[in-house]
């Protein structure tokens, strides 16, 4: 089962650029939460702070607290690697490992951590591929096809399967469908709909219909600040902030 996320006074910088400012947010377990906002408003930076990916960028800095379940993400003695195992991530552009087969891609998170049980790996790979609705398309050449030889939409579902295989509790998705065609997009959306029964999902999107379709909660970001965070329905019908309304009605300058 997924766990909730509590974000408190979160600030993030790139050098002198203050990309994320004073974010306060509680993400409910086993639900999908959408992050919307114009390009460059800090959506990616925000979610990358949740699994400590932000600190991999030179000169990047984070302050504030994030709790995944009971674990302090930025606590002393918490290892980034441990957090990233519990918090899966799917990126905007599909990034399968080009040197690995489909099977190895899915198993990579476990194999690269020294997990060697063949039978269980087979099981986990199959389950993850079924969960990401890719199994039927790849089951005949699991170990023959390279991950890079799949289509864009398949690659993204492969990346989701890869993230699922390490059995995370939270799944971060940074515009997972923005580089895909409409059919692949709808497959990914169906997938999110299913996954949120077992995982806490945070999905960044610039597509508001998508947010409305898959997420129970929606957060609106603007210039690095969290402007409004509420039930999706509330945000899209009776937003409390003028700027939110301007944005979702497309009147945004």
């Amino acid at each position: 089962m997924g766990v909730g996320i509590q974000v408190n006074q979160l600030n993030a910088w790139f050098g002198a650029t203050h990309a994320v400012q004073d974010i306060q947010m509680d993400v409910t377990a086993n639900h999908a939460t959408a992050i919307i906002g114009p390009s460059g408003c800090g959506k990616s930076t925000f979610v990358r702070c949740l699994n400590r990916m932000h600190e991999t960028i030179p000169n990047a800095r984070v302050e504030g607290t994030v709790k995944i379940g009971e674990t302090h993400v930025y606590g002393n003695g918490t290892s980034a690697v441990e957090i990233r195992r519990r918090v899966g991530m799917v990126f905007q552009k599909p990034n399968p490992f080009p040197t690995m087969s489909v099977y190895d891609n899915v198993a990579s998170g476990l194999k690269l951590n020294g997990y060697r049980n063949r039978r269980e790996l087979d099981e986990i790979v199959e389950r993850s591929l079924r969960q990401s609705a890719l199994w039927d398309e790849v089951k005949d050449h699991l170990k023959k096809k390279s991950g890079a030889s799949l289509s864009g939409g398949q690659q993204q579902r492969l990346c989701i399967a890869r993230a699922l295989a390490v059995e995370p509790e939270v799944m971060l998705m940074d515009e997972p469908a923005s580089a895909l065609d409409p059919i692949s997009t709808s497959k990914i959306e169906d997938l999110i709909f299913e996954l949120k029964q077992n995982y806490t999902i945070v999905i960044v999107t610039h597509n508001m219909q998508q947010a409305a379709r898959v997420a129970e909660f929606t957060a609106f970001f603007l210039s690095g600040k969290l402007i409004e965070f509420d039930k999706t329905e509330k945000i899209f019908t009776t937003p409390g902030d003028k700027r939110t309304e301007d944005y979702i009605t497309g009147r945004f300058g």
Partner: protein
Amino acid sequence: MNGSLLKARYQPDPAAASSPLAETTQVPRRKIHLKSSRLADAGFRYLMLGCALSVLAIVVLIVRELFLRSTLSLHAFGLKFLMTQSWDPVNGDFGALAFIYGTLVSSLLALILAVPLSIGVATFTTELCPRILRGPLSYMVELLAAIPSVIYGLWGVFVLVPILRQYVQPFLAKYFGWTGLFGGYQFGIGMLAAGIILAVMIIPIVTSITREVMSAVPTAQREGVLAIGATRWEMIRVGVLRNARTGIMGAIILGLGRALGETIAVTMLIGNRPEIAKSLFAPGYTLASVIANEFSEATEDLYLSALVEIGLVLFAITLLVNIVAQLMVWSITRGSARRAAV
């Protein structure tokens, strides 16, 4: 506030609720325990850092060993070592001047021959030749760089020197003898032969770096010049060469660095006599060559020490030249390959 309209536009999609995947998601989650890694990460980092530090250590060691093994000679001769010409192992009197002279003259000769050719080749391959020839031509110039020094020497001794002796030297003596540069005995072997072989050896590096900096000139610069009605040559001169000149200067100096330190081919061709002569036909001796020839035979401590000091002088000269060249090339190419986007 137009609430009902918004609601209509963003109604959750009912189709999504009845997905065919429902049965596969209800899998009980096992906890997979994986190894902790913090120690391994730190260890790996330090191991790589160790490798990087070893590069610094090697350079420090080079300096230390050179000073250590030349102490005797440094004390015995001081600065005089650089300014006297005597090289007399029997009486223990050593000076590096003749070698410094030979090194500088052979290298400058090489530059005079190599630079125009290299710029010509680089221009031809980047700007003029049909696209299809570009790859093969660059590959052939690269091959020139892959030929070992000893093979250049071998070829020089058995092919180049006879040609020089029979055809080139008589010609030069007859028509340019009045300059004083082409007088005396025509052995074939000598400063001229060494300069020519060095030129051939540094052409690849000067060419390839020149080509690199020329390709780094933005196309807009070329088009800008062509647009005002310039000919191809004017475009190359104004649009390309002028913009690339710092980098080309760097390439030339880097070539000079190579020539100064080149050993075996020069040793086989220069004649190995520590004399300072005006004629390019006369034999000479370089810093590198005297080390190559005499190091394993030097039995006296002072003799050995003087040879190491020769090495120190060579190191200092090439270090200076290379640093200047690096800075010039770096100012163009920004030092390191930039991280690929995405």
